[in-house]
C-alpha cells in the first residue's frame, strides 16, 4: 500500500487530535484532582454555606412577678411589617387588604409598592392579631418579622424597681439590670437546609439545640403596698408642692423591700421617650445629706458605746463650737438643761455635736461604718451608689465634720442606706441586707420541671446591741409622741424621726430649699414595716415634721389595715 500526501496529513491531524484529547483529558483530570483533593474542604464549606442556614432560636426572658404572683414584666411578640416593592404580587387588592389590617391609608401602601427602594417599612410594633392577619395573607413581597418585646403591665408603678430592657434585649436598672444574665436564658441554634431562593426546605433540621428560657423572678415587693406608697407620695408631692420624692418600705426583720417608689417616674413601656435621668432608681443611686434623721445613728452609736444614756444631761446654750465651726440649733435658740431624750425629741444639733465629740472620731466613724454608710448595701437593684462619707485622715475631712456629720450634714447617703441603717435599730440591732427578689424559678426545657430557689434574709452584722436598739426605740417613740405628732396613728406606738436637710450648692447651702424626710417603724415593739419618706424641695412647708411626717402617717394607716396589724392594745393582749 502506498499512501499519498493526503494520508500523511490525515495521520498528522489524527496525532494532533490525540494530543489535544490527551491534553484536554489531562487538564480535566488535573482540575478534577484540584477540586476533589486540594479544594475539597473549601468547596465543602462553600456548599454548606450555600445550602445550610443556621437560625438562632431566641430564649424567652423570664417573667417578673410581685410577691403575690401578679405579673410585672413579661415577654411578648410585636410585628414589624415591611414590603419589598420589586417582589410584591397583588397590587391594589393586596394594598386594600393591608390598609384594612394595618389601619393605614391605602395610598400609603400603594406608595410603598411603587417605591424604588428594595425594602420599605409599613408598620412597626403591631400587635398579635394584626401580625397574624398579615401573615395569613401569605403575600409575596410582604414581610412580617416577629420582634421580641418586653411588656410591663403596671406601667410606671414599678418602673424603678423592675427596670427596663432595651431593643437589643439587654436589661438595665432595677432587677432587669441586676439579674440580666439570669433573666435572659440561653439562646438555641437550629441548622436547616435552604432552597435556592433562601426558603427553609421542609426537611428535618440538620442540628437543633433548644433554647433555655430565662429564670423568672418573684419579687419581695407587694404590688398593693407599692400602690399605697405611690398614691400617698403622689398626694404629698401635690399637697406640699415638692419637686420630687421617694418612699421606701422594708420589712425590718428580713430586709425585704416591700415598696420602692420615686417620683417623677417613667413608663417602662415607652422608656425611649423618657428623660434618661429618670431611668435610674433614686432610692439606690441618688444621695442626699440626710439631716436630722441621721441623729438616730449618732444616738445609737453613743448609747451603744456607753457615751450617753437616755437620762444624760447637757446644758444647751443654742450653739457649740466644734473644730472651729459654730454649730447652732435649727431655731438658733438655747434650751437649757436637756436630757439626751429631749435632745432627740427637739432635734437639737448642739446635743448631737456634743455626743459625737464626746464619743470621739474613731468611735463615731466606726459606728457609721457598722451601719453601712459609705459602702454599698449590695441590694439587688442595679445602679446602686455608695453615698459619700469622709473619714478622718482624708484630705477633705476637717475636725468640724465630726460635729456636722452628727446631725447629717457633710455626709451623703442614699435612701436605701438610710432605711437599712434605721432598720437595724428596728431589728434589735442587727443589720440586714436589703433584697428585692424573693424567689428565682427556672424551668427545665426538656422535662418542664420547675426549680425554685428561695432567697433567704441575710444578716450583715450586728450594728448595736439589742439593749441599745430597744432603748433607742423607746426614745424614738417619744420623738413621735412629743415631737413629730403628725406622724402618729392612734392605737399604735410608732418610732420615728423627722429630718429637714438644707440643700448644698456650689456656694454653701441654699437659703430656702430643703429636703424633708421622715423615717419610722411600727409597731414599735414588734416592727412589721419601716417607711422612709423623702420629699425634695417642698414649697408648702420646708419642714419634715409638717410634710414627710403626715405622709408617713397616711401610708402607715393604710399599711396597718392592709397588713392586718391589730392596734397595740389588742395585739399585745393576744400574746401568751
Amino acid at each position: 500500500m502506498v499512501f499519498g500526501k493526503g494520508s500523511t496529513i490525515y495521520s498528522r491531524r489524527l496525532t494532533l487530535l490525540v494530543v489535544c484529547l490527551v491534553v484536554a483529558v489531562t487538564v480535566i483530570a488535573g482540575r478534577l484532582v484540584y477540586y476533589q483533593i486540594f479544594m475539597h474542604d473549601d468547596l465543602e464549606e462553600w456548599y454548606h454555606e450555600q445550602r445550610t442556614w443556621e437560625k438562632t432560636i431566641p430564649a424567652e426572658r423570664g417573667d417578673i412577678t410581685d410577691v403575690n404572683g401578679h405579673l410585672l414584666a413579661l415577654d411578648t411578640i410585636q410585628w414589624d411589617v415591611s414590603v419589598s416593592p420589586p417582589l410584591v404580587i397583588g397590587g391594589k387588592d393586596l394594598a386594600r387588604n393591608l390598609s384594612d389590617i394595618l389601619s393605614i391609608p391605602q395610598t400609603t401602601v400603594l406608595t410603598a409598592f411603587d417605591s424604588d427602594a428594595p425594602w420599605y417599612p409599613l408598620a412597626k410594633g403591631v400587635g398579635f392579631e394584626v401580625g397574624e392577619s398579615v401573615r395569613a395573607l401569605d403575600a409575596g413581597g410582604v414581610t412580617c418579622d416577629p420582634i421580641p418585646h418586653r411588656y410591663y403591665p403596671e406601667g410606671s408603678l414599678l418602673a424603678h424597681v423592675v427596670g427596663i430592657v432595651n431593643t437589643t434585649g439587654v436589661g438595665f436598672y432595677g432587677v432587669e439590670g441586676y439579674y440580666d444574665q439570669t433573666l435572659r436564658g440561653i439562646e438555641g441554634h437550629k441548622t436547616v437546609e435552604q432552597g435556592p431562593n433562601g426558603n427553609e426546605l421542609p426537611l428535618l433540621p440538620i442540628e437543633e439545640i433548644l433554647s433555655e428560657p430565662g429564670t423568672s423572678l418573684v419579687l419581695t415587693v407587694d404590688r398593693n403596698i407599692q400602690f399605697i406608697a405611690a398614691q400617698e407620695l403622689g398626694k404629698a408631692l401635690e399637697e406640699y408642692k415638692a419637686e420630687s420624692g421617694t418612699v421606701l418600705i422594708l420589712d425590718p426583720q428580713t430586709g425585704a423591700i416591700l415598696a420602692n417608689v420615686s417620683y417623677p417616674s417613667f413608663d417602662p413601656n415607652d422608656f425611649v421617650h423618657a428623660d434618661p435621668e429618670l431611668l435610674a432608681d433614686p432610692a439606690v443611686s441618688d444621695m442626699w445629706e440626710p439631716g436630722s434623721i441621721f441623729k438616730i445613728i449618732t444616738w445609737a452609736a453613743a448609747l451603744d458605746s456607753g457615751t450617753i444614756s437616755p437620762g444624760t444631761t447637757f446644758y444647751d446654750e443654742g450653739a457649740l463650737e466644734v473644730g472651729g465651726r459654730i454649730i447652732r440649733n435649727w431655731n438658733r435658740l438655747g434650751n437649757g438643761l436637756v436630757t439626751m431624750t429631749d435632745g432627740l425629741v427637739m432635734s437639737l444639733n448642739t446635743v448631737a455635736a456634743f455626743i459625737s465629740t464626746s464619743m470621739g472620731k474613731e468611735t463615731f466613724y466606726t459606728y457609721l461604718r457598722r451601719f453601712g454608710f459609705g459602702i454599698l448595701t449590695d441590694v439587688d437593684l442595679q445602679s446602686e451608689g455608695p453615698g459619700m462619707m469622709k473619714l478622718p485622715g482624708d484630705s477633705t475631712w476637717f475636725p468640724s465634720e465630726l460635729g456636722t456629720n452628727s446631725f447629717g450634714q457633710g455626709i451623703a447617703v442614699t435612701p436605701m442606706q438610710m432605711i437599712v441603717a434605721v432598720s437595724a435599730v428596728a431589728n434589735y440591732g442587727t443589720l440586714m441586707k436589703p433584697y428585692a427578689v424573693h424567689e428565682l424559678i427556672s424551668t427545665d426545657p426538656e422535662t418542664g420541671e420547675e426549680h425554685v430557689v428561695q432567697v433567704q434574709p441575710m444578716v450583715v452584722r450586728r450594728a448595736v446591741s439589742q439593749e441599745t436598739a430597744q432603748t433607742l426605740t423607746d426614745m424614738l417613740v417619744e420623738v413621735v409622741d412629743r415631737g413629730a405628732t403628725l406622724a402618729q396613728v392612734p392605737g399604735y406606738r410608732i418610732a420615728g424621726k423627722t429630718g429637714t436637710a438644707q440643700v448644698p450648692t456650689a456656694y454653701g447651702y441654699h437659703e430656702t430649699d430643703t429636703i424633708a424626710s421622715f423615717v419610722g417603724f411600727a409597731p414599735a415593739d414588734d416592727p412589721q414595716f419601716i417607711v422612709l419618706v423623702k420629699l425634695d424641695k417642698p414649697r408648702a412647708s420646708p419642714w419634715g415634721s409638717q410634710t414627710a411626717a403626715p405622709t408617713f402617717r397616711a401610708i402607715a394607716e393604710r399599711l396597718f389595715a392592709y397588713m392586718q396589724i391589730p392596734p397595740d392594745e389588742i395585739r399585745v393582749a393576744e400574746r401568751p
Partner: protein
Amino acid sequence: MKGKLPRVSLSSKGSRTPSTQALIVIFISLFILFLWLNFVLTQQVEMIGRDIQVKSEELQSLQRQGDDYRQAISVKGSQWNMSEKARLLGYQPQAPVFLRMSEPLAEPVSEAPAPAGQSSALASSEGIQAQTASRLRLLLTGRLLGPEIETAP
C-alpha cells in the same frame, strides 16, 4: 469409549436457565422498584418535614397567642385598672375590725377535753371547732358584746 467423556447435563429436564434478557428485565424492574421506593420514602420524609414545619409554626403562633392573652389579662388586672374599676363600683378601702377577747376563742389543742368515746386527736380538733363556732356565733349575734369587743379606729 476411551478418550471421550460422556456428556453430562447439569440442568434437569424441564428447568430453564434464565436468559440474559430475563436478567435485564429483572434488574430493570428491581431498579424501578428501588427508585419508586426511594421516591415514596423521599416524599414521606418531605411530607413529614413539611408537617413538622407547619406544626412548629402553629405551635409558635399558639405560644404568641398565649403571650398575647397573658399580656391582655395582666393589663386588665393591673393595679391602676383594678383600683379604677373598684372606685367606679363604689368600693372603698376598709379598715379591718379587730375584736378584743377576754379569753382566747379556742383553747390550745393539748388542753382541749376529749369527748367520751372518741380518739383524743379527732375529738380535740372537732371540739375546738365547735367551741370556736359557738363563740363566733355569740359574738356576731351580739350576745358577747360589751367590754370584750373593741373596734380599731
